[in-house]
């Protein structure tokens, strides 16, 4: 795989640093390392490897790709892998990157699943798992707070958050309908027309 070399896919606006030729093997290897070492969240590891160490992306471009990853459905980690792989080597690069980043965690969780099925109901395991599950709730809540700090710009945004939660948790509206309904409302609220400039009504 590693001897297949080609020019990186052309990049608009010249935002990319001067990337030489990146082989599919190098892309796979880089994302495999990220997938194997990124404990506690992938984004900082992606930045460290792709921007700082390998210089495959500039910082501005990294943030740009991250914002696409967060807007589209899918996990940030895999969406970033697709976008970066695609930028470096087209479709082959995207596949190499996404397979690389998923492989270590996938194999690990496969083994965890087998072990959990065999020993998950032991007293010590259930005790530990209770603690792990409670900690995970705190972890997800902290993600909510941190994302909220940066992305909830206007007061009305908090209303959209509340509407989504009420729709899913209280009214038990299926997630896709809540997503489409509240999402449409929110996008229309932030529509580009008119004199209301985004971010100024804080």
């Amino acid at each position: 795989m590693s001897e297949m070399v080609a020019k990186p896919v052309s990049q608009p606006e010249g935002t990319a640093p001067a990337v030489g030729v990146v082989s599919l093997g190098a892309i796979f290897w880089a994302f495999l390392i990220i997938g194997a070492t990124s404990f506690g969240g992938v984004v900082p590891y992606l930045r460290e490897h792709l921007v700082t160490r390998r210089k495959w992306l500039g910082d501005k471009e990294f943030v740009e790709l991250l914002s696409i990853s967060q807007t589209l459905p899918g996990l940030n980690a895999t969406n970033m892998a697709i976008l970066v792989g695609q930028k470096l080597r087209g479709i082959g690069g995207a596949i190499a990157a996404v397979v690389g980043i998923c492989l270590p965690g996938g194999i690990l969780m496969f083994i965890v699943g087998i072990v959990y099925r065999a020993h998950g109901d032991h007293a010590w395991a259930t005790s530990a798992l209770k603690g792990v599950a409670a900690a995970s709730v705190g972890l997800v809540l902290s993600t909510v707070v941190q994302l909220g700090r940066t992305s909830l710009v206007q007061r009305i945004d908090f209303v959209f958050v509340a509407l989504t939660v009420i729709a899913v948790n209280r009214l038990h509206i299926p997630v896709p309908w809540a997503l489409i309904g509240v999402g449409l409302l929110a996008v229309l609220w932030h529509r580009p027309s008119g004199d209301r400039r985004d971010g100024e009504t804080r």
Partner: protein
Amino acid sequence: MNQIPALLRVFAYLSLLTVGGGMAAFPELKDLTVDVHAWLTFPQLVHLYSVGQLAPGPNMMMIVPIGDWAAGPLGAILVVLAFFGPTSLLTFVVGRGWAKLENWPWRRSIQQGLAPVSIGLLLAGCFTMAKGAIFGLETAAIAVGVLLMLLQYKVNPALLVLGGALVGLLSF
């Protein structure tokens, strides 16, 4: 083996709900895998999700054991393909055109509009999970403790989840 079509259907569908992260799909993940198809119990789902936070890489690799339990190793592989395939394809296609959309005024509207909804979905997923994970003072204390530590200090979240396991071992 006859679970495979259902696995593919369920996880391809869930894939499209992960706006803002895997947690956004958690309420539907619970409905479909626990209530509709009974591939696992709710406590098992909560445990798998939580342990999945300790694994490196994308945080939804906890779907692998669900595929394995329902239909063996082939199920595990197909679940991953179903879950990451549709969104990867979408990202690939949109990624090519996104730069051209830079001056499209609606692009900013979509990003600003979807941000609160995706945060709402994360929160909804979190509440669903809390129903299976928080009972009594001890578990609530662990959750709040982890939340405060993460907001206050720069700690690796995986370490805190491990810490939760330790507290669990010692106190339950």
